[in-house]
């Protein structure tokens, strides 16, 4: 297709989709948008879509369309349905609610109150943007997620899709493109924060005629799903970005390495690639120019280490996924020994917008050293679990308390974990740290890919370190000694401490070995693997000491260190706890004081939660 033909599609389609973004849209059409991200899909959003379509067809309702979209972000309220153009936001919708939505909302223009979302402060929210969750967000990487149908390339085109590619191919030299990306200040969103433009510029000096562009979609941090959501919600954005890069660095082939555990993302990518080829955005003579580029998908088999760029390249080549030695860096010798640019999904997602809006627009957002926005997968003990995109420089407190709505059940904030198994724990006193690459590193954590797990005071920091170490022990590639054996020994020491068998010697060894693994490991995985230990040792050392010296776990998570007791003064003899206990560890006749046989108790805390008088703790 020619650029002119694409522009015609854009005009036609943009007019058709105006109601998606224009709440004053004068027409009578209604679009029912249903989130089809992994979260909402698993809570039956495809059934909701089916049900809406069934009703509309049966009743022959006109001017209503039902559209699947990517993630809206507020996953804890899913499945989410939004009606445009009035922007009504329905949460936790079930297929059984469809009939009512059609009857009331679509047919009569009345809002279905019972499906409206309640904000953390108790206010009923009608529209998406009224939610505190969205107020401080700025969506660049996620700008199309929840707006367009990711399986329809024309919807992507409607909202300026492939406009950046056309601009690059017709108005910009290779150097222009690299300069814009460099000037924008965009840095790698995969964790390390390497300047993207600089990475691309390395390719200029490479004379090899064969070069590759790779998208790292092997998102592996526990609890992280930023990249998945971008791929599910806006796959063409990634294809466009990679093609732009292909032009800038002189590559003719790209690969997307995506986890096989992301079936929806894979499917949408496949559809997007097929459509992009049909529309001439991939393949020979793109948009009628001399530039040719194509993209293939490679599936990962679920190894965390394949998120490390050189292990990923090995895996694409069909080898065991383990890191290569650097140097040479991929820009010099990457995939099959050829110069290769490799960027993470979220990094790519920023590229087309930067090209369209300019470097200055982008670098006006964020902090001195970290530009633009960052997407976080907010999870753990926080009210609004979901996907958030905020300008760099936003503080953790804003994300957790303003966007995330704070800690549920009236509990106290204890720590936030960023950067996954490579990151660290951030305590209360550092909550006002503005989020950027340098600040997070200074406080012993790292940006990482964007997992942000909030923990309240029921979480034991020693046990948390143990959890991450357990993950690493299974996910190390096994190549170098410190990471393969060192992390296992760290895990064993942590387990010993959690079990109440830790000694002062263990604490010393834990710290020494952690530092050794950091210094001596071959790749980033091992070099950062002890971070959860080191940061909890730094900020929560007293908890380790309590485990070792007093054999106690203040959070009550380390079962071998906790004792569940019934306060006789508070016990009313209601007998509920005795009936609830799964192992018959509670003795006592109705009306009399109850007590727990510690030899039988498995510390499941069922009784604690059952007691109406809060007599058990």
């Amino acid at each position: 297709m020619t650029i002119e033909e694409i522009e015609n599609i854009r005009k036609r389609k943009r007019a058709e989709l105006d109601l998606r973004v224009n709440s004053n849209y004068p027409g009578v059409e209604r679009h029912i948008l249903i989130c089809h991200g992994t979260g909402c899909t698993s809570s039956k959003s495809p059934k909701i879509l089916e049900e809406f379509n069934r009703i509309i067809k049966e009743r022959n309702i006109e001017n209503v369309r039902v559209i699947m979209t990517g993630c809206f972000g507020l996953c804890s309220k899913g499945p989410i349905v939004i009606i445009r153009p009035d922007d009504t936001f329905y949460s936790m919708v079930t297929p059984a609610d469809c009939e009512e939505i059609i009857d009331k909302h679509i047919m009569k223009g009345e809002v279905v109150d019972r499906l409206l979302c309640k904000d953390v402060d108790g206010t009923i929210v009608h529209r998406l943007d009224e939610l505190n969750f969205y107020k401080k967000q700025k969506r660049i990487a996620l700008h199309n997620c929840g707006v367009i149908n990711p399986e329809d390339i024309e919807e992507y085109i409607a909202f300026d899709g492939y406009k950046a590619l056309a601009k690059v191919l017709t108005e910009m030299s290779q150097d222009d493109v690299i300069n814009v990306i460099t000037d924008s200040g965009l840095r790698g969103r995969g964790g390390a924060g390497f300047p993207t433009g600089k990475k691309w510029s390395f390719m200029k000096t490479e004379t090899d005629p064969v070069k590759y562009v790779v998208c790292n979609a092997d998102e592996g941090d526990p609890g992280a799903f930023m990249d998945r959501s971008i791929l599910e919600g806006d796959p063409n954005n990634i294809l466009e970005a990679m093609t732009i890069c292909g032009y800038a660095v002189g590559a003719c082939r790209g690969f997307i390495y995506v986890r096989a555990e992301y079936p929806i993302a894979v499917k949408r990518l496949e559809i997007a690639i097929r459509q992009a080829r049909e529309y001439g955005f991939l393949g020979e003579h793109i948009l009628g120019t001399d530039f040719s580029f194509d993209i293939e998908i490679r599936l990962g088999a679920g190894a965390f280490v394949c998120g490390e760029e050189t292990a990923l390249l090995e895996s694409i080549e069909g080898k065991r996924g383990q890191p290569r030695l650097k140097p040479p860096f991929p820009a010099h010798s990457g995939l099959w020994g050829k110069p290769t640019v490799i960027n993470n999904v979220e990094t790519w997602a920023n590229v087309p917008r930067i090209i369209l809006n300019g470097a200055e627009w982008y670098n006006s957002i964020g902090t001195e050293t970290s530009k633009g926005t960052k997407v976080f997968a907010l999870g753990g003990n926080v009210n609004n679990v979901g996907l958030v995109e905020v300008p760099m420089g936003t503080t953790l407190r804003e994300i957790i308390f303003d966007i995330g709505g704070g800690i549920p059940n009236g509990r106290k904030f204890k720590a936030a974990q960023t950067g996954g198994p490579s990151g660290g724990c951030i305590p209360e006193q550092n909550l006002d740290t503005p989020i950027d690459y340098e600040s997070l590193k200074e406080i012993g954590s790292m940006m990482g890919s964007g997992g942000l797990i909030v923990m309240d005071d029921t979480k034991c920091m020693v046990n948390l370190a143990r959890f991450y170490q357990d993950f690493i022990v299974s996910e190390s590639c096994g190549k170098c000694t410190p990471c393969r054996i060192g992390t296992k020994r760290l895990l064993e020491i942590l387990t010993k401490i959690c079990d109440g068998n830790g000694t002062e010697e263990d604490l010393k060894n834990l710290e020494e070995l952690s530092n050794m693994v950091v210094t001596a490991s071959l790749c980033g995985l091992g070099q950062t693997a002890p971070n959860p230990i080191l940061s909890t040792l730094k900020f929560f050392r007293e908890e380790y000491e309590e485990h070792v010296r007093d054999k106690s776990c203040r959070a009550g998570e380390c079962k071998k260190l906790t004792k569940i007791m019934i306060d006789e003064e508070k016990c009313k003899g209601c007998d509920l706890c005795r009936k609830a206990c799964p192992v018959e560890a509670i003795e006592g006749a109705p009306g009399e004081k109850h007590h727990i046989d510690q030899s039988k108790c498995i510390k499941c805390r069922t009784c604690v939660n059952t007691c109406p008088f809060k007599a058990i703790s």
Partner: protein
Amino acid sequence: MSEEKLVNLTIDGIQVSVPESYTVLEAARKANIEIPTLCYLKEINEIGACRMCLVEIEGMRGLPTSCITKVAEGMVVHTHTDKVMKTRRTVLELLLSNHDKDCLTCRRNGSCELQKLCEKFNIHDIRFKGERSRTDTDDLSPSIVRDNGKCILCRRCTATCKNVQNICAIETINRGYESCIGTACDKSLNDVDCILCGQCIESCPTGALHEKDDSEKVWEAIHDPEKYVIVQTAPAVRVAIGEEFGMPIGTNAKGKMVTALKRLGFDKVFDTNTGADFTIVEEATEFVDRLTNGGVLPMITSCCPSWIRFAELNYPDDLGHLSSCKSPHQMFGAILKSYYANKAGIDPNKIVTVSVMPCVAKKYEATREEMENENGLRDVDYVISTRELARMIKQNDIDFANLEDSEFEDPMGEATGAAAIFGATGGVMEAALRTAADLVEGRDIQEINYEAVRGEKGIKETTVTVNGKEIRICVVSGIKNVRKVMDEVHEGKSNYDFIEVMTCPGGCIMGGGQPIKNSKTRATVDVRKLRADAIYDIDEKSTIRKSHQNPQVNKIYEEFFGQYGSSLAHKYLHTHYSPKQKYRF
């Protein structure tokens, strides 16, 4: 040689000037500064995995591994700082925390690279203890034992299997702490595409890989008064066994070896070289026959059992190219239990034949079902490697280095220079050419040094003119090279008439049963050349240098086999091959 640019760097305060392609490790060695290594095996395994060779380099973050870090102008390296030493020590402690640590009963006790480092680092206490990852042993093959409990995952074995032999029978499997060296579907080496060459054993720094020890069985036979135990030793053993007793690499210790074998109590000590002379006259006859009567060409030598196994597993359609000749020690074993038993008046049932080989695949070869005579007697009963023989000699408190020399025994003692060079790549070909040329031309040709087939190159080609006819020759060693040659044979594109194949790079002198050289020796000494020089020296000094001129051999033909290639010769000295399943699950 082109002049490589030199760079200057400082290592531990010492100024060093080395070519820019050097690693920091190589530069340090040049300055006589030792840096400990474990996973490093020059040009084969340079992966920086074990983290023993870490150093501090000013301006570089962390502790780079010296084995893979290239030198740079002005670099300042510190190899033994407090931080470096503590880290190396912790690496050792971690390795030991997942290791058997049963040095007293380990075959590599005294020659283990891990053990030596632990001694050097004065390690007595291991701070870290915990669960072991994997400790099982695979001893199902007749040749190689793989003991996971002693494996430190340095990957020298897998790199050898992959980069040298291109077999990839072993690889790292599983992930994280569960990572270990494994095979396809984690089956025994016996049941996968391993060709039992034993190059992995030669590469292993610890006792995780070793030969299947058959010395106990040999002792039992020696001490059994009913048995008549005859030992034969391969050409390559004599130029390597001295190394096990502190003699320089490349020492021909034939005389001492024969004396030692006699002292161990063998009833007869014969030379496999005599068997090699039989092989040559049979193989040359077969080749001349194929050449003149339109037989399958190229003909390919068949002395190497790993090569035979490789061909049966990988080129089942091309087995017709293989010479039907048994290998020298199998031929010799067959002769011992037939002609010789009769001649010496010994009941063949009481004869135990033992072969000392530079090879562990020979153990497998001896167990092949084809290697049995009509009375159900094995041609060769036991095969022991050079290493096992050395251990037997040590066990019997024999002061090897100070032994007097003695000769192989009659009537089978006399062998030719042609047989001696079997031990080096190209040797079989050269020996065969000496005989074939004479047979075809019917005269005693004087130019018998075929230099073109000698030397270290993996694939050597030449053309020899015999009786006006050009014979196209190829000599190949190292299975990685064999594949290239065999793919052409398979596709019918091979232009050669005669191909010699040896599995181990350099031939039998570098076999999987030879004394193990540590990583540093392999990096700094050309072991292959020193051993090969010793072999060719034996040839040069031999009075008879052509197999068909060996009077013993010809006497046995006169008395027993008749003509070269006769039907009786075929019965005892030839064999056949059959396609085999790559994976036998």
